[in-house]
């Protein structure tokens, strides 16, 4: 038995540490720890709720904008503000762009090197690489000369002994299975995807001034303006043309490069449809194109839960059943009278204080039998839940969504895998790619709707009825959510006398990366790692595959909330 430590887990956002027991080339147990804490929600206390989104957006710069969206929705829910349809569409375009962008970056720049051996690409025959590329896609950059050029760049790096970002990889590891030609093709697409992500995210700059951290939301709608006849309006016919162009280019890349690459790589690793399943419960709040943000209905991505890998039914979801446990996290619930026990609490009641009790740095191992993470453990009705693109895909699939069903079934058929193969490490990778395809095609619909509304003279983007704080009730509470690229995101806000008095976030990676709870149930990463094969405990590449398949985002995951010494007696959230 060997204890392995991976710290830092790289190619993720933030600071994640994995400790695992390996016995007989299998992981027998695992612990996931977030090793950085900031305390952003504490900073929000006393602020104007209208600017909460500007602060909350900084929770994460990778999944930038998702916290801004959840935050304005929470405040709008608290104040009872309905937003104009155009504002809803612009938010969907910004959110959808984030989704596709994150998925492309995740696959190529954060995850691919777990499957792709860069050094092996040097042995590839560029002509055969060209044949391979042309056999799976119409993507024009596929000539032998093109792949030769890419190979020369890699050769130069290797010869210089300055491998830059590619230094220190597990090159030559026996777990790599792609032939040299597939490796060379993937390296070429890694480099191309750097251009794609830069161009595609310009959508957020057009609509929000910049990325990361676009600056355009308002409680009540968007600061974005729209006018068919004004050159200086944010959205006008010229900008619609630009948006359409950028979306079309991204759609081509997703269809001709991203999806074919996922299929090609997956076909060389069929056994990875059998590893990494984990907890098997999948949850999503639902999102996009809802008639009203908080009624839980009418979404493109339906709300619901798939329990115990049972795709025959979808259970309803009530955000009031979300709790957080700190039994194994470096916090304590403040002793503030009734209801202050150390058991799990609803996020709106979570009054937590950071209290580090781990080993004194520098340390070799965490005390995993006690508290071992800055991440809390969210549970739904006491159950561990996996969230993310796979969860959304499964809930939509089990709900009978025709588009999703057709896409998933044809993908499974192509891979010669049963539906149960989706509960796996590669299932997450495939679910993410399929979702990129779905969202990128909806993006063009949303831009078209905006164009249509503009043509019809409907240019409203903001509802100013509640902009003046004097119009607000003395106290108000709200819940805002978003299905972010990495999964279900919830913000809870409590407002009193026009100021924020409590703010709580439960982010996708809080769900997925959290530690054990008071019942000893492992978090999703931990559960998914058990039974993962490890050929070489010194180079646990396989562990990285499964952890990366969740697309970890640790800045999002780590949260503390609540005002010290306050009691939140009533259940504040009605959804």
């Amino acid at each position, binding site marked *: 038995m060997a204890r392995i430590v991976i710290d*830092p887990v790289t190619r993720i956002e933030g600071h994640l540490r994995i400790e695992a027991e390996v016995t007989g080339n299998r992981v027998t147990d695992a612990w996931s720890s977030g090793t950085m804490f900031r305390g*952003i929600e504490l900073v929000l206390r006393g602020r104007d709720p209208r600017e909460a989104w500007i602060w909350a957006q900084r929770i994460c710069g990778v999944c930038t904008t998702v916290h801004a969206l959840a935050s304005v929705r929470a405040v709008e829910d608290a104040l009872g503000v309905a937003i104009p349809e155009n504002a809803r569409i612009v938010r969907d375009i910004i959110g959808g762009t984030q989704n596709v962008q994150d998925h492309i970056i995740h696959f190529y720049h954060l995850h691919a090197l777990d499957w792709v051996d860069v050094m092996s690409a040097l042995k590839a025959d560029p002509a055969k690489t060209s044949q391979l590329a042309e056999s799976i896609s119409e993507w024009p950059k596929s000539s032998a000369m093109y792949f030769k050029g890419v190979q020369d760049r890699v050769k*130069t790096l290797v010869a210089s002994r*300055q491998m830059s*970002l590619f230094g220190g990889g597990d090159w030559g590891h026996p777990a790599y299975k792609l032939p040299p030609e597939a490796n060379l093709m993937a390296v070429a697409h890694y480099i191309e995807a750097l251009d794609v992500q830069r161009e595609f995210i310009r959508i957020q700059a057009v609509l929000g001034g910049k990325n990361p951290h676009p600056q355009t939301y308002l409680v009540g*709608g968007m600061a974005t303006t729209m*006018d068919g006849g004004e050159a200086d309006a944010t959205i006008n016919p010229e900008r619609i043309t630009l948006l359409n162009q950028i979306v079309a280019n991204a759609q081509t890349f997703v269809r001709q490069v991203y999806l074919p690459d996922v299929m090609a790589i997956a076909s060389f690793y069929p056994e990875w449809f059998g590893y990494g399943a984990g907890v098997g419960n999948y949850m999503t709040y639902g999102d996009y194109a809802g008639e009203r943000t908080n009624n839980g209905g009418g979404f493109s991505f339906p709300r619901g839960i798939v329990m115990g890998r049972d795709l025959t039914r979808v259970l309803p979801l009530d955000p009031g059943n979300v709790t957080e446990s700190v039994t194994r996290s470096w916090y304590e619930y403040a002793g503030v009278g009734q209801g202050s026990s150390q058991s799990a609490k609803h996020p709106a009641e979570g009054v937590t204080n950071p209290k*580090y009790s781990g080993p004194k740095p520098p340390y070799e191992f965490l005390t995993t039998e006690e508290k071992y993470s800055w991440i809390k453990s969210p549970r739904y009705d006491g159950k561990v839940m996996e969230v993310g693109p796979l969860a959304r895909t499964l809930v939509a699939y089990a709900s009978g969504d025709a588009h999703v069903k057709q896409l998933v079934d044809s993908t499974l058929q192509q891979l010669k895998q049963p539906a149960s193969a989706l509960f796996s490490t590669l299932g997450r990778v495939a679910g993410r790619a399929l979702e990129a395809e779905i969202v990128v095609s909806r993006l063009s619909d949303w831009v078209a709707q905006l164009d249509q509304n503009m043509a019809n003279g409907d240019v409203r983007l903001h509802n100013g009825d509640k902009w003046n704080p004097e119009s607000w009730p003395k106290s108000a509470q709200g819940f805002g959510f978003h299905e972010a690229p990495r999964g279900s995101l919830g913000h809870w806000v409590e407002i009193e006398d026009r100021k924020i008095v409590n703010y709580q976030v439960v982010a996708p990676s809080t769900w997925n990366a959290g530690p054990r709870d008071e019942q000893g149930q492992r978090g999703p990463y931990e559960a998914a790692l058990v039974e993962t094969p490890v050929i070489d405990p010194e180079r646990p590449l396989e562990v990285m595959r499964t952890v990366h398949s969740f697309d970890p985002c640790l*800045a999002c995951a780590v949260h503390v909330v609540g005002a010290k010494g306050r009691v939140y007696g009533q259940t504040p959230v009605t959804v």
Partner: protein
Amino acid sequence: MMKALLSVPLSSAENALPDDDSVLGLCVSRGISRRRFMEFCVGVTATLALPAAYAQTVAKALSEKRKPTLVWLEFQDCAGNTESMLRTSHPTVEDLVLEAFSWEYHETIMAAYGKAAGSALERVVREEKGKYIVVVEGAIPTADDGVYCTIGGRTALDIAHEVCGGAAEIIAVGACAWDGGLVRSGPNPTGAMGLQGAVSGLRVVNLPGCPHNSANLAAVLVHYLTFGVMPSLDGLNRPLFAYGDLIHDQCERRAHYDAGRFVEQWDDEGARKGWCLYKMGCKGPEANFNCPTVQWNGGTSWPVKAGHGCIGCASPRFWDTKSPFYERLPHAAGFGVDVKASEIGWVAIGGVAAATAVHGIVSIVRDRKQADAPDSAIEKVREQ
């Protein structure tokens, strides 16, 4: 003089590339095609506003046998500055991380993980003492012996001391690495500080902003690559070319301000016509940054252009000094104060490259000048 420079079309720089086959030959042998090589040199000279002949200097810098080593540290961060870096277009991220520098440690994007990642950083510190560049992103927690951020079991503070202590140059990207940013604001439960606050005695080039604009980082890196030194700085150690001027003085909506045309409420007619956002809380009149000229995401836009006021994200302790963000500034700059009509003219004619060019050349020839924010403003915040 500068106008004369700008009148040279950028594409003509290509003709000024060196005939020296050995330089180009070496680049080609490194896998850089002639076309890519030219694009790179032209892009670089444009970013820094150098006369076309400087392409040769850039080419020579590129053809040095060893690329300078760069390590990028992330502490209490959101990775927004890493993401911003990934969006750089002149030069592109692949130019920076694969060709111009040996980018040997950067947790968000490096291939190595765990022990191999730690060894890569250790090797740089041990073998390249005094020669490497460090970029720092995120604040550094100093309370409770630094337990609020550990990497590989070591505290951020410990790592920052060691790695920055042996560096040739240090660049702090984003508000958090500069002065603690959002992490330090409010009750600051982790004792977070910016790099210079957490580790004393360091010479740091600060690129604040939330996030920093990668056009500026690229310009700083290329300046270093070409001349071996950092560009001129202001009193807060921010490069003058990027932080020397008020947003308000460079703003495309400035004429509306001068004419008294303001957005009175969100989504009104003035908003659709692109009028001034001063009454909606815009902090442009008291914030320095080059957003209006370089803009963001390859010159696509910037917040005011997209319809929202500036939040002053490159100003000292901006979370504490610029919020409430929707409240109108009490003292706006007077009409015509410090307007540089010439700059506005260039923005109008030119596009991003030309505008950046102006600022770039200025940074090289201009002496240090007074920073925008008096230290007393910072002190006032500290006292709170």
